[in-house]
């Protein structure tokens, strides 16, 4: 649900609640637009009524404009929008069957439901036919399987195939839609002669058309990219945090965490998955540095109770990931000083302090203990971890958010 769920105003579980009311509104509008009348629907093919075409075009450009703008504003997570993969042959054959059925039956599947809801008997018969058709298809599926899965092109997008930006494509589509409105109106006038657009006579469309075109031009300049969040840290604050250098966790603290599980630290390995599989500190989760900005890790990184400690082999990679995390407003994220190399420096070499200061002496003693513990290998360290990790498991994503339908 648009701006509410991605920005965290209401939770995911409200999805169905909103869907119910949107569904009611959708059915109402569909009925009011005349989509329950097969005469109106078939009018597109005979040229006397193009309402259906206009509604489809309007729906397409409204949804497109809304998606692009809301994505730009961080109100919607476009990666959750399901893109139907293209199967070329099944699309062609299915499209042909659908066209024949549309003219013969006078409905398309979605509109037949609308018409059935207002009690049209032909629509009920149409729905029954759909049911029988589905049954036959299901039973005979092995026969069609090759065709059904033929020429899979994956989830391709028109503007990507054309090599133009999403904004330009949006502008072109709006222009095409406006042109189509003009042309269809002219055709209607010719075919019907007397009662064309009775209620719209003498209306001026100059203003709406201009505004639609302006929106189209605006879309050209809006960059199309996944926006993670709008709540980024202000640039000045970012620079302050980055320069302050207070974001380091010492290897000692991490060692302490590994031995005493209750120490409030979450370890995050920012190396790529292969390195993570090869070796990682017990209990770590893996967030490759280039995926820090992904929304999938929002829950893990915005941990308030435990320090989130990023580490890589050295310091640099973790530092890069940390900077982007800071920019996105995660304020409890730290970097392991020296990385794994630094951690193992500490394990392998522990110079005896030259002073007798309490601090230096106790640090030395602690490191000696850590060394012996890791050398002997305390198996319970590895097994104990399991309990802590689920609390930082990333937000699960289900990529079935929205799907086609008319």
């Amino acid at each position: 649900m648009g701006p509410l769920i991605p920005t965290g105003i209401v939770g995911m579980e409200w999805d169905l609640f909103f869907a119910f009311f949107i569904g009611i509104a959708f059915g109402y509008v569909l009925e009011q637009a005349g989509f329950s009348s097969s005469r109106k629907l078939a009018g597109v093919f005979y040229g006397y009524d193009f309402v259906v075409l206009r509604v489809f075009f309007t729906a397409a450009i409204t949804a497109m404009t809304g998606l692009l703008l809301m994505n730009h504003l961080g109100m919607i997570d476009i990666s959750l929008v399901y893109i139907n993969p293209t199967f070329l042959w099944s699309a062609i054959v299915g499209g042909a069957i659908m066209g024949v059925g549309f003219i013969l039956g006078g409905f398309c599947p979605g509109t037949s439901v609308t018409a059935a809801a207002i009690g049209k008997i032909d629509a009920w018969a149409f729905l029954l036919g759909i049911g029988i058709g589905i049954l036959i298809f299901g039973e005979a599926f092995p026969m069609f399987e090759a065709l059904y899965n033929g020429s899979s092109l994956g989830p391709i997008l028109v503007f990507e195939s054309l090599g133009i930006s999403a904004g330009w494509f949006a502008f072109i589509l709006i222009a095409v839609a406006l042109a189509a409105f003009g042309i269809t109106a002219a055709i209607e006038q010719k075919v019907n002669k007397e009662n064309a657009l009775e209620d719209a006579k003498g209306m001026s469309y100059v203003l709406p058309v201009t505004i639609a075109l302006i929106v189209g031009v605006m879309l050209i300049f809006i960059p199309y990219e996944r926006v993670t969040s709008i709540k980024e840290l202000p640039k000045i604050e970012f620079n302050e945090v980055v320069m302050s250098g207070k974001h380091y966790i010492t290897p000692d603290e991490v060692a302490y965490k590994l031995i005493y599980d209750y120490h409030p630290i979450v370890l995050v390995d920012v190396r790529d998955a292969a390195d993570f599989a090869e070796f990682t500190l017990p209990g770590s989760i893996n967030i490759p540095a280039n995926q820090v900005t992904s929304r999938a890790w929002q829950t893990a990184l915005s941990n308030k109770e435990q320090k989130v400690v990023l580490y890589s082999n050295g310091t640099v990679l973790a530092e890069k990931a940390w900077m982007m995390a800071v920019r996105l407003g995660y304020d409890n994220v730290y970097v392991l000083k020296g990385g794994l190399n630094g951690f193992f420096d500490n394990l392998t070499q522990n110079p005896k302090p030259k002073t007798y200061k309490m601090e230096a002496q106790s640090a030395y003693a602690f490191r000696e203990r850590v060394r012996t513990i890791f050398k002997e290998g305390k198996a319970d360290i590895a097994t104990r971890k399991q309990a802590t990790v689920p609390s930082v498991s990333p937000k699960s994503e289900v990529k079935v958010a929205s799907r086609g339908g008319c």
Partner: protein
Amino acid sequence: MKSSKTLTIIVLVFTGFFLIGIIGKAVLTSGYKQSATNIAKELTSEQRFINIAQLHALITSGEQHLLIDVRDSTEYKKGRLPNAVNLPISELFSADYADIRESNISRKILYAASEADAVKALVMLMHEGYPNFIVLTGGYPIAQSSLIDTQNPSAWYSNDEKMRYNYKSLFKVGPSTEAPHVAADKVVDISNKPRGGC
């Protein structure tokens, strides 16, 4: 002439809603010139980095470049790479250094005491939209000792992220084989099956 009032109002309301949103976004976020995702991508690729061997090749070939030392001016005065100019990270955006920041040399190479510091400067410059900045990997001390003092190529490919230990053999407790690996996103992948539609 009668105008289509309802239509105009609907279109205006939607346009207004998004205009307010766009203005609000411009005001609320402090105008980073590049998105975080983009920067994360560039920082983890090679394109923004140059190692000492490449720098050596660049210097000997005489190609156009500018070495920029982002350490404090006191450290800069003590020693620097040849022909390097000073742009202290604390005064990254001060007017005194505008000519360095805005010079249109195609390779402006940042270095600092450590690579991490140079990356900080790089990110801040990228946030302001300055192009052509790259970072010398390894940092000043390694470059100084291996490139200037000794011409010793052993450290030319030095990389902070190189494993210096065989972690696995040193770390006896290791990750248990059933260490809880948390999958990135529990995606229910049904993308290759056609669905829906009317």
